[in-house]
Protein backbone atom coordinates (compact mmCIF):
# COMPACT_ATOMS: atom_id res chain seq x y z
CA UNK A 1 0.00 0.00 0.00
CA UNK A 2 1.11 3.53 -0.59
CA UNK A 3 1.65 5.53 2.56
CA UNK A 4 0.79 9.13 2.90
CA UNK A 5 3.44 11.70 2.10
CA UNK A 6 4.55 13.62 5.21
CA UNK A 7 5.92 17.13 4.88
CA UNK A 8 7.31 19.50 7.49
CA UNK A 9 6.94 23.15 6.62
CA UNK A 10 9.14 25.51 8.54
CA UNK A 11 9.92 29.19 8.48
CA UNK A 12 13.46 30.08 9.32
CA UNK A 13 14.66 33.58 10.01
CA UNK A 14 13.26 36.78 11.29
CA UNK A 15 10.57 37.71 8.83
CA UNK A 16 7.15 37.59 10.38
CA UNK A 17 4.90 36.44 7.58
CA UNK A 18 3.52 32.98 7.32
CA UNK A 19 0.57 33.55 5.06
CA UNK A 20 2.42 32.01 2.13
CA UNK A 21 3.43 28.89 4.07
CA UNK A 22 -0.10 28.45 5.31
CA UNK A 23 -1.45 28.58 1.77
CA UNK A 24 1.07 25.93 0.73
CA UNK A 25 0.10 23.84 3.78
CA UNK A 26 -3.54 23.86 2.74
CA UNK A 27 -2.65 23.07 -0.85
CA UNK A 28 -0.68 20.02 0.24
CA UNK A 29 -3.34 18.88 2.68
CA UNK A 30 -5.95 19.13 -0.06
CA UNK A 31 -3.69 16.97 -2.21
CA UNK A 32 -3.86 14.31 0.52
CA UNK A 33 -0.55 14.91 2.31
CA UNK A 34 0.08 15.18 6.05
CA UNK A 35 1.62 18.55 6.73
CA UNK A 36 3.37 19.29 10.00
CA UNK A 37 3.60 23.01 10.56
CA UNK A 38 6.08 24.18 13.14
CA UNK A 39 5.52 27.90 13.22
CA UNK A 40 7.56 31.02 12.66
CA UNK A 41 11.12 32.00 13.57
CA UNK A 42 12.62 28.55 13.81
CA UNK A 43 16.34 27.94 13.99
CA UNK A 44 17.96 25.28 11.81
CA UNK A 45 18.47 23.14 14.95
CA UNK A 46 14.77 23.28 15.80
CA UNK A 47 13.71 22.56 12.25
CA UNK A 48 15.95 19.54 11.84
CA UNK A 49 15.08 18.09 15.26
CA UNK A 50 11.39 18.38 14.45
CA UNK A 51 11.85 16.88 10.98
CA UNK A 52 13.75 13.90 12.41
CA UNK A 53 11.18 13.20 15.11
CA UNK A 54 8.35 13.58 12.63
CA UNK A 55 10.21 11.40 10.12
CA UNK A 56 8.92 13.49 7.25
CA UNK A 57 9.58 12.60 3.63
CA UNK A 58 10.15 16.22 2.79
CA UNK A 59 11.57 19.07 4.80
CA UNK A 60 10.32 22.29 3.28
CA UNK A 61 12.13 25.39 4.46
CA UNK A 62 10.79 28.75 3.53
CA UNK A 63 12.71 31.97 3.96
CA UNK A 64 12.37 35.47 2.67
CA UNK A 65 15.18 37.12 4.49
CA UNK A 66 18.13 36.26 2.29
CA UNK A 67 19.82 34.01 4.83
CA UNK A 68 19.59 30.86 2.71
CA UNK A 69 23.32 30.57 2.06
CA UNK A 70 24.02 30.18 5.78
CA UNK A 71 20.89 28.27 6.73
CA UNK A 72 21.08 25.37 4.28
CA UNK A 73 24.68 24.27 4.92
CA UNK A 74 23.74 24.16 8.58
CA UNK A 75 20.63 22.11 7.87
CA UNK A 76 22.59 19.57 5.84
CA UNK A 77 25.25 19.27 8.53
CA UNK A 78 22.57 18.69 11.16
CA UNK A 79 20.75 16.12 9.04
CA UNK A 80 23.99 14.21 8.75
CA UNK A 81 24.57 14.45 12.48
CA UNK A 82 21.09 13.01 13.06
CA UNK A 83 21.76 10.20 10.57
CA UNK A 84 18.98 11.22 8.20
CA UNK A 85 20.94 12.25 5.11
CA UNK A 86 18.14 10.64 3.08
CA UNK A 87 15.64 13.35 3.91
CA UNK A 88 14.51 15.38 0.90
CA UNK A 89 15.07 19.09 1.43
CA UNK A 90 13.11 21.65 -0.55
CA UNK A 91 13.55 25.41 -0.35
CA UNK A 92 10.90 28.03 -0.85
CA UNK A 93 10.78 31.77 -0.95
CA UNK A 94 12.40 34.53 -2.91
CA UNK A 95 16.01 34.42 -4.05
CA UNK A 96 18.20 35.26 -7.01
CA UNK A 97 18.97 32.66 -9.72
CA UNK A 98 22.59 32.22 -8.70
CA UNK A 99 21.46 31.22 -5.20
CA UNK A 100 19.10 28.63 -6.67
CA UNK A 101 22.01 27.07 -8.53
CA UNK A 102 24.20 27.14 -5.46
CA UNK A 103 21.50 25.59 -3.24
CA UNK A 104 20.97 22.75 -5.68
CA UNK A 105 24.69 22.16 -5.68
CA UNK A 106 24.54 21.86 -1.88
CA UNK A 107 21.87 19.17 -2.08
CA UNK A 108 18.57 21.04 -2.00
CA UNK A 109 16.33 18.84 -4.16
CA UNK A 110 14.18 21.63 -5.52
CA UNK A 111 13.73 25.35 -5.10
CA UNK A 112 10.14 26.53 -5.33
CA UNK A 113 10.11 30.27 -5.71
CA UNK A 114 7.24 32.42 -4.56
CA UNK A 115 4.22 32.26 -6.89
CA UNK A 116 4.92 28.68 -8.02
CA UNK A 117 1.52 27.35 -9.12
CA UNK A 118 -0.01 24.98 -6.51
CA UNK A 119 -0.26 22.05 -8.91
CA UNK A 120 3.42 22.39 -9.73
CA UNK A 121 4.30 22.24 -6.03
CA UNK A 122 2.20 19.10 -5.58
CA UNK A 123 3.67 17.41 -8.65
CA UNK A 124 7.22 18.29 -7.64
CA UNK A 125 6.92 16.90 -4.12
CA UNK A 126 5.08 13.79 -5.24
CA UNK A 127 7.71 13.19 -7.91
CA UNK A 128 10.58 13.57 -5.45
CA UNK A 129 9.11 11.05 -3.02
CA UNK A 130 8.35 8.62 -5.81
CA UNK A 131 11.90 8.87 -7.14
CA UNK A 132 13.31 8.18 -3.69
CA UNK A 133 11.30 4.97 -3.32
CA UNK A 134 10.39 3.05 -0.15
CA UNK A 135 12.23 3.70 3.04
Amino acid sequence: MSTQIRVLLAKVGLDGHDRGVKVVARTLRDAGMDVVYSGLHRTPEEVVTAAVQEDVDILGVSLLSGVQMTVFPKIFALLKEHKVEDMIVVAGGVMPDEDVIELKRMGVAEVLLQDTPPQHIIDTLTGLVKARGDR
Partner: protein
Amino acid sequence: MARPYIPSLDLIEPAARGETWAVARLISRAEAGTPEVREAIGEIYRRAGKAHVVGITGVPGSGKSTMVSKLVRKLLDAGERVAVVAIDPSSPYSGGSILGDRIRMSDLVLDPNVFIRSMATRGAVGGMAHAALDVVDILDLAGFDRIIIETVGVGQDEVEIAKASHTTVVVSAPGLGDEIQAIKAGILEIADLHVVSKCDRSDANRTLTDLKTMLKDGLGSALTRGWLPPVIGTSSYDDQGFEELISGFGKHLAHLDGPAGAARREQISVFRLKKAAEALMLERLRRHPAFEPEGRRVAARQTDPYAAASGIVKQFSMEKPHV
Protein backbone atom coordinates in the same frame (compact mmCIF):
# COMPACT_ATOMS: atom_id res chain seq x y z
CA MET B 1 20.90 10.62 -0.75
CA ALA B 2 19.02 7.37 -1.18
CA ARG B 3 19.88 4.57 1.15
CA PRO B 4 18.86 0.94 1.29
CA TYR B 5 15.64 -0.03 3.04
CA ILE B 6 16.34 -0.99 6.64
CA PRO B 7 14.15 -3.90 7.79
CA SER B 8 11.95 -2.98 10.75
CA LEU B 9 13.51 -5.71 12.90
CA ASP B 10 16.91 -4.05 12.47
CA LEU B 11 15.51 -0.77 13.76
CA ILE B 12 14.62 -2.21 17.16
CA GLU B 13 18.08 -2.06 18.74
CA PRO B 14 18.92 1.50 17.71
CA ALA B 15 15.41 2.53 18.81
CA ALA B 16 15.90 0.83 22.17
CA ARG B 17 19.14 2.80 22.56
CA GLY B 18 17.02 5.92 22.05
CA GLU B 19 18.36 6.86 18.61
CA THR B 20 15.77 9.32 17.38
CA TRP B 21 15.95 8.50 13.68
CA ALA B 22 15.22 4.82 14.35
CA VAL B 23 12.38 5.56 16.78
CA ALA B 24 10.87 7.96 14.25
CA ARG B 25 11.16 5.53 11.35
CA LEU B 26 9.60 2.67 13.32
CA ILE B 27 6.70 4.94 14.20
CA SER B 28 6.12 5.70 10.50
CA ARG B 29 6.10 2.01 9.71
CA ALA B 30 3.71 1.26 12.57
CA GLU B 31 1.45 4.03 11.39
CA ALA B 32 1.36 2.64 7.88
CA GLY B 33 0.67 -0.78 9.38
CA THR B 34 2.36 -2.73 6.61
CA PRO B 35 2.75 -6.49 7.21
CA GLU B 36 6.55 -6.07 7.25
CA VAL B 37 6.50 -4.17 10.54
CA ARG B 38 4.32 -6.63 12.46
CA GLU B 39 7.02 -8.96 13.67
CA ALA B 40 9.00 -6.00 14.97
CA ILE B 41 5.93 -4.54 16.70
CA GLY B 42 5.39 -7.93 18.32
CA GLU B 43 8.88 -8.01 19.74
CA ILE B 44 8.62 -4.40 20.86
CA TYR B 45 5.36 -5.13 22.65
CA ARG B 46 6.98 -7.92 24.64
CA ARG B 47 9.81 -5.63 25.71
CA ALA B 48 7.64 -2.59 26.51
CA GLY B 49 5.32 -1.89 29.41
CA LYS B 50 7.21 0.44 31.69
CA ALA B 51 5.86 3.85 30.71
CA HIS B 52 2.88 5.67 32.14
CA VAL B 53 0.51 6.52 29.28
CA VAL B 54 -1.61 9.63 29.74
CA GLY B 55 -4.39 10.49 27.29
CA ILE B 56 -5.38 14.15 27.17
CA THR B 57 -8.56 14.99 25.35
CA GLY B 58 -11.02 17.84 25.07
CA VAL B 59 -12.80 19.86 22.43
CA PRO B 60 -10.82 21.97 19.92
CA GLY B 61 -9.33 25.09 21.42
CA SER B 62 -9.69 23.95 25.02
CA GLY B 63 -5.99 24.58 25.62
CA LYS B 64 -4.64 21.02 25.44
CA SER B 65 -1.42 21.65 23.52
CA THR B 66 -0.48 24.68 25.60
CA MET B 67 -1.13 22.63 28.72
CA VAL B 68 0.89 19.68 27.47
CA SER B 69 3.80 21.99 26.79
CA LYS B 70 3.76 23.30 30.39
CA LEU B 71 3.18 19.87 31.84
CA VAL B 72 6.07 18.37 29.93
CA ARG B 73 8.37 21.13 31.16
CA LYS B 74 7.51 20.22 34.78
CA LEU B 75 8.06 16.53 34.16
CA LEU B 76 11.43 17.26 32.55
CA ASP B 77 12.42 19.37 35.52
CA ALA B 78 11.64 16.36 37.68
CA GLY B 79 14.11 14.34 35.62
CA GLU B 80 11.72 12.39 33.41
CA ARG B 81 12.03 11.54 29.74
CA VAL B 82 8.76 12.47 28.05
CA ALA B 83 7.17 11.70 24.68
CA VAL B 84 4.18 13.47 23.21
CA VAL B 85 1.95 12.08 20.48
CA ALA B 86 -0.28 14.84 19.14
CA ILE B 87 -3.15 13.57 17.04
CA ASP B 88 -5.19 15.80 14.76
CA PRO B 89 -8.06 14.90 12.48
CA SER B 90 -7.51 14.29 8.77
CA SER B 91 -9.58 16.10 6.21
CA PRO B 92 -12.51 13.87 5.30
CA TYR B 93 -12.27 15.13 1.74
CA SER B 94 -8.64 14.64 0.82
CA GLY B 95 -7.36 12.37 3.59
CA GLY B 96 -4.60 14.91 4.17
CA SER B 97 -4.05 16.95 7.29
CA ILE B 98 -2.41 19.99 8.79
CA LEU B 99 -0.76 19.04 12.06
CA GLY B 100 -0.21 22.20 14.07
CA ASP B 101 0.03 21.15 17.71
CA ARG B 102 3.83 21.46 17.61
CA ILE B 103 3.58 25.22 17.32
CA ARG B 104 2.51 25.42 20.96
CA MET B 105 5.29 23.09 22.06
CA SER B 106 8.19 24.82 20.37
CA ASP B 107 9.93 25.63 23.67
CA LEU B 108 10.51 21.94 24.21
CA VAL B 109 11.98 20.95 20.88
CA LEU B 110 15.65 21.15 21.70
CA ASP B 111 15.46 19.30 24.99
CA PRO B 112 17.17 15.93 24.49
CA ASN B 113 14.68 14.23 26.84
CA VAL B 114 11.64 15.09 24.75
CA PHE B 115 10.21 13.49 21.65
CA ILE B 116 7.20 15.01 19.90
CA ARG B 117 5.33 13.29 17.13
CA SER B 118 2.28 14.48 15.18
CA MET B 119 -0.18 11.99 13.75
CA ALA B 120 -3.28 12.28 11.62
CA THR B 121 -6.37 10.23 12.38
CA ARG B 122 -6.61 8.68 8.96
CA GLY B 123 -3.99 6.66 7.21
CA ALA B 124 -3.76 3.82 9.69
CA VAL B 125 -4.84 0.32 8.79
CA GLY B 126 -7.37 -1.08 11.25
CA GLY B 127 -8.14 2.20 12.92
CA MET B 128 -6.19 4.93 14.51
CA ALA B 129 -6.29 3.72 18.09
CA HIS B 130 -4.58 0.49 17.14
CA ALA B 131 -1.70 2.30 15.43
CA ALA B 132 -1.41 4.88 18.20
CA LEU B 133 -0.93 2.13 20.78
CA ASP B 134 1.79 0.54 18.66
CA VAL B 135 3.45 3.94 18.58
CA VAL B 136 3.19 4.12 22.37
CA ASP B 137 5.02 0.79 22.67
CA ILE B 138 7.83 2.03 20.44
CA LEU B 139 8.25 5.12 22.62
CA ASP B 140 8.12 2.94 25.71
CA LEU B 141 10.90 0.76 24.31
CA ALA B 142 12.90 3.90 23.57
CA GLY B 143 12.90 4.64 27.29
CA PHE B 144 10.34 7.39 27.74
CA ASP B 145 8.93 7.36 31.25
CA ARG B 146 5.78 9.26 30.44
CA ILE B 147 3.92 9.19 27.15
CA ILE B 148 1.28 11.84 26.60
CA ILE B 149 -1.26 11.46 23.82
CA GLU B 150 -3.22 14.56 22.84
CA THR B 151 -6.42 13.95 20.91
CA VAL B 152 -9.36 16.12 20.00
CA GLY B 153 -12.26 14.78 22.00
CA VAL B 154 -14.62 14.20 19.16
CA GLY B 155 -14.96 11.11 17.05
CA GLN B 156 -14.78 7.43 17.81
CA ASP B 157 -11.08 6.90 17.14
CA GLU B 158 -9.99 9.70 19.42
CA VAL B 159 -12.19 8.57 22.28
CA GLU B 160 -10.88 5.02 21.91
CA ILE B 161 -7.31 6.24 22.21
CA ALA B 162 -8.10 8.19 25.34
CA LYS B 163 -9.80 5.17 26.86
CA ALA B 164 -6.85 2.96 26.05
CA SER B 165 -4.45 5.13 28.08
CA HIS B 166 -3.64 4.34 31.69
CA THR B 167 -4.86 7.72 32.80
CA THR B 168 -7.36 9.79 30.85
CA VAL B 169 -7.53 13.53 31.34
CA VAL B 170 -10.55 15.40 29.99
CA VAL B 171 -10.03 19.13 29.52
CA SER B 172 -12.89 21.61 29.76
CA ALA B 173 -12.40 25.29 29.17
CA PRO B 174 -14.32 28.43 30.05
CA GLY B 175 -15.55 30.63 27.26
CA LEU B 176 -16.42 27.95 24.72
CA GLY B 177 -20.17 28.07 25.28
CA ASP B 178 -22.51 27.65 28.23
CA GLU B 179 -22.50 23.91 28.56
CA ILE B 180 -19.58 21.85 29.74
CA GLN B 181 -18.44 20.88 26.25
CA ALA B 182 -17.31 17.44 27.31
CA ILE B 183 -20.91 16.47 28.05
CA LYS B 184 -22.02 17.34 24.58
CA ALA B 185 -19.11 15.41 23.14
CA GLY B 186 -19.96 12.47 25.40
CA ILE B 187 -16.48 12.24 26.86
CA LEU B 188 -17.16 13.24 30.46
CA GLU B 189 -17.51 9.61 31.49
CA ILE B 190 -14.08 8.56 30.30
CA ALA B 191 -12.18 10.96 32.58
CA ASP B 192 -9.91 9.73 35.35
CA LEU B 193 -8.97 13.34 35.95
CA HIS B 194 -10.86 16.47 34.99
CA VAL B 195 -9.02 19.63 34.14
CA VAL B 196 -10.60 23.04 33.81
CA SER B 197 -8.06 24.98 31.79
CA LYS B 198 -7.55 28.73 31.42
CA CYS B 199 -8.26 29.38 35.11
CA ASP B 200 -6.68 32.81 34.73
CA ARG B 201 -10.00 33.80 33.15
CA SER B 202 -12.71 35.23 35.37
CA ASP B 203 -15.37 32.93 33.94
CA ALA B 204 -13.38 29.81 34.88
CA ASN B 205 -14.98 29.61 38.33
CA ARG B 206 -18.34 29.01 36.78
CA THR B 207 -16.98 26.21 34.65
CA LEU B 208 -15.42 24.65 37.75
CA THR B 209 -18.68 24.87 39.70
CA ASP B 210 -20.78 23.58 36.81
CA LEU B 211 -18.49 20.63 36.29
CA LYS B 212 -18.41 19.70 39.97
CA THR B 213 -22.21 19.89 40.16
CA MET B 214 -22.49 17.71 37.10
CA LEU B 215 -20.12 15.14 38.54
CA LYS B 216 -22.03 14.90 41.81
CA ASP B 217 -24.94 13.41 39.84
CA GLY B 218 -22.75 10.60 38.59
CA LEU B 219 -21.09 10.06 41.96
CA GLY B 220 -22.54 6.59 42.49
CA SER B 221 -20.93 5.00 39.46
CA ALA B 222 -17.59 6.65 40.21
CA LEU B 223 -17.60 5.27 43.73
CA THR B 224 -18.30 1.74 42.57
CA ARG B 225 -15.23 1.99 40.36
CA GLY B 226 -13.32 2.94 43.47
CA TRP B 227 -11.98 6.12 41.97
CA LEU B 228 -13.44 9.57 42.21
CA PRO B 229 -12.12 11.70 39.35
CA PRO B 230 -10.76 14.92 40.84
CA VAL B 231 -11.41 18.29 39.24
CA ILE B 232 -8.22 20.30 38.80
CA GLY B 233 -8.06 23.92 37.69
CA THR B 234 -5.03 24.90 35.62
CA SER B 235 -3.74 27.97 33.89
CA SER B 236 -0.99 27.62 31.34
CA TYR B 237 -0.57 31.38 31.29
CA ASP B 238 -0.16 31.74 35.06
CA ASP B 239 1.52 28.39 35.51
CA GLN B 240 -1.09 27.14 37.97
CA GLY B 241 -2.38 23.73 38.92
CA PHE B 242 0.38 21.61 37.42
CA GLU B 243 1.68 20.25 40.73
CA GLU B 244 -1.83 19.12 41.51
CA LEU B 245 -2.17 17.55 38.08
CA ILE B 246 1.08 15.63 38.41
CA SER B 247 0.20 14.46 41.89
CA GLY B 248 -3.15 13.37 40.41
CA PHE B 249 -1.20 11.15 38.01
CA GLY B 250 0.62 9.60 40.95
CA LYS B 251 -2.60 8.90 42.83
CA HIS B 252 -4.25 7.39 39.79
CA LEU B 253 -1.24 5.18 39.16
CA ALA B 254 -1.39 3.99 42.76
CA HIS B 255 -5.07 3.22 42.23
CA LEU B 256 -4.18 1.26 39.10
CA ASP B 257 -1.75 -0.84 41.08
CA GLY B 258 -4.74 -2.26 42.93
CA PRO B 259 -7.45 -4.61 41.59
CA ALA B 260 -9.03 -1.84 39.53
CA GLY B 261 -5.77 -1.44 37.69
CA ALA B 262 -5.62 -5.10 36.75
CA ALA B 263 -9.11 -4.81 35.27
CA ARG B 264 -8.13 -1.67 33.37
CA ARG B 265 -5.00 -3.26 31.95
CA GLU B 266 -6.95 -6.32 30.90
CA GLN B 267 -9.58 -4.16 29.24
CA ILE B 268 -6.88 -2.33 27.27
CA SER B 269 -5.30 -5.62 26.20
CA VAL B 270 -8.59 -7.10 25.05
CA PHE B 271 -9.24 -3.92 23.10
CA ARG B 272 -5.86 -4.18 21.38
CA LEU B 273 -6.32 -7.83 20.63
CA LYS B 274 -9.68 -7.12 19.01
CA LYS B 275 -8.23 -4.26 16.98
CA ALA B 276 -5.31 -6.37 15.82
CA ALA B 277 -7.64 -9.19 14.80
CA GLU B 278 -9.92 -6.74 12.99
CA ALA B 279 -6.97 -5.29 11.10
CA LEU B 280 -5.82 -8.72 9.96
CA MET B 281 -9.31 -9.79 8.97
CA LEU B 282 -10.08 -6.59 7.11
CA GLU B 283 -6.84 -6.71 5.25
CA ARG B 284 -7.50 -10.25 4.04
CA LEU B 285 -11.17 -9.65 3.42
CA ARG B 286 -10.56 -6.56 1.33
CA ARG B 287 -8.27 -8.50 -0.97
CA HIS B 288 -10.88 -11.20 -1.53
CA PRO B 289 -11.19 -12.00 -5.25
CA ALA B 290 -14.96 -12.41 -5.07
CA PHE B 291 -15.64 -8.68 -4.69
CA GLU B 292 -15.30 -7.76 -8.35
CA PRO B 293 -17.44 -10.51 -9.88
CA GLU B 294 -20.02 -10.19 -7.12
CA GLY B 295 -19.96 -6.41 -7.53
CA ARG B 296 -20.87 -6.86 -11.19
CA ARG B 297 -23.77 -9.11 -10.22
CA VAL B 298 -24.95 -6.51 -7.70
CA ALA B 299 -24.71 -3.80 -10.37
CA ALA B 300 -26.83 -5.91 -12.70
CA ARG B 301 -29.30 -6.46 -9.83
CA GLN B 302 -28.93 -10.21 -10.13
CA THR B 303 -28.33 -10.17 -6.39
CA ASP B 304 -28.40 -7.61 -3.61
CA PRO B 305 -25.49 -6.21 -1.55
CA TYR B 306 -26.50 -8.05 1.63
CA ALA B 307 -26.90 -11.46 0.05
CA ALA B 308 -23.65 -11.07 -1.91
CA ALA B 309 -21.74 -9.83 1.16
CA SER B 310 -22.97 -12.64 3.32
CA GLY B 311 -21.89 -15.10 0.61
CA ILE B 312 -18.39 -13.58 0.49
CA VAL B 313 -18.03 -13.56 4.26
CA LYS B 314 -19.14 -17.18 4.47
CA GLN B 315 -16.66 -18.18 1.79
CA PHE B 316 -13.92 -16.05 3.42
CA SER B 317 -14.32 -17.56 6.86
CA MET B 318 -13.88 -21.07 5.51
CA GLU B 319 -10.68 -20.29 3.62
CA LYS B 320 -7.28 -20.95 5.14
CA PRO B 321 -5.31 -17.76 5.79
CA HIS B 322 -2.08 -17.66 3.88
CA VAL B 323 -0.48 -14.65 5.49
